């Protein structure tokens, strides 16, 4: 199953348009897959995983829409209904990742180092720990805090921009 983690994450990223939401849903997808392995019919693991992931993304978008303060129906732009269900194209996803990269560089040290190493360079916490000579637990904590900071930063930028 692990060979599909990049594919599942990419599908989630295209459907949600949010790096951290995609990460969460990818995790939930694999947890659901491991937990419900008995119900897998054995035909196509890739399609099965992507089905779980896409359904979870749609559920997330429905839930997010429910939480929004709804305006009157006649005030809603008609174009929105036509494009909401479409996955994002590659350019938009690349733009998301470049914004994530910019946000990582905006963080203060030592979170910047952890965030760049983890989110941009794709290093594991252990690799960062060995490279920087910092304790593994410390690196994990920095990554966790950097993630929370990035979530706030990116969502604030979305709200303003």
């Amino acid at each position, binding site marked *: 199953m*692990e060979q599909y*983690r*990049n*594919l*599942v*994450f*990419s*599908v989630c*990223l*295209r459907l949600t348009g949010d790096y951290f939401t995609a*990460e969460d849903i*990818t*995790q939930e997808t*694999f*947890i659901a897959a*491991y*937990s419900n392995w008995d119900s897998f019919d054995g035909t196509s693991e*890739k*399609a099965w995983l*992507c*089905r779980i992931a*896409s*359904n979870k993304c*749609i559920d997330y*978008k*429905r839930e997010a*829409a*429910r939480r929004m303060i709804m305006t009157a*129906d006649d005030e809603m732009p008609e174009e*929105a*209904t036509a494009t*909401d*269900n479409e*996955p994002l*194209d*590659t350019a938009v*996803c690349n733009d998301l*990742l470049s914004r994530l990269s910019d946000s990582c560089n905006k963080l203060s040290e030592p979170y910047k180092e952890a965030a760049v190493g*983890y*989110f941009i360079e*794709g*290093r*594991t*916490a252990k*690799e960062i720990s060995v490279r920087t000579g910092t304790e593994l637990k410390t690196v994990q904590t920095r*990554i966790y805090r950097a993630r929370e900071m990035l979530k706030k930063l990116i969502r604030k930028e979305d709200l303003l921009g």
Partner: protein
Amino acid sequence: MNEERYDYLSDEELNSLIEDTENNAMFTAPPDLMADVLGRLNIKDSTADSDKSDMTVAEFKPDNVKEFRSFCIKVIAAVAAAVVIIAVAPIVSPKLIPDSATDYSMEYAARDADIPTKEEVLGVEDVIPSKEEVLTRNGITEGIRDSHIISDFYSKRS
């Protein structure tokens, strides 16, 4: 309304999304993603196991054995002290332990002496006889419940 806006993907849509993603838009997942998944699965498993049984097995440690031995010694000492107190206390101060059976009977005997008997209470001459006594005295023992006998009786009496 939201359900209408966000439909689940059909098989064709999903397959085309997978194909397009594989060919054009593959991104790298966060490196520790699968480790986090396995960690969360382990937590789930351990919580599920703990739900199945409330019993927890204590880990064997040499310190636990020492603690258990000291606890046993304390319990034995407490039991021995209790036995000694029970054995020695009557000898040391017999007045502290009253002869409860004797005291109890004497107290009740004294109390009984003050209570008048039934005969003393009912020894008064002008006690009003009961209905049954009156009927028995007049030879009526059967059919007391017949209303005409009772009414005859009362008419005779009046």
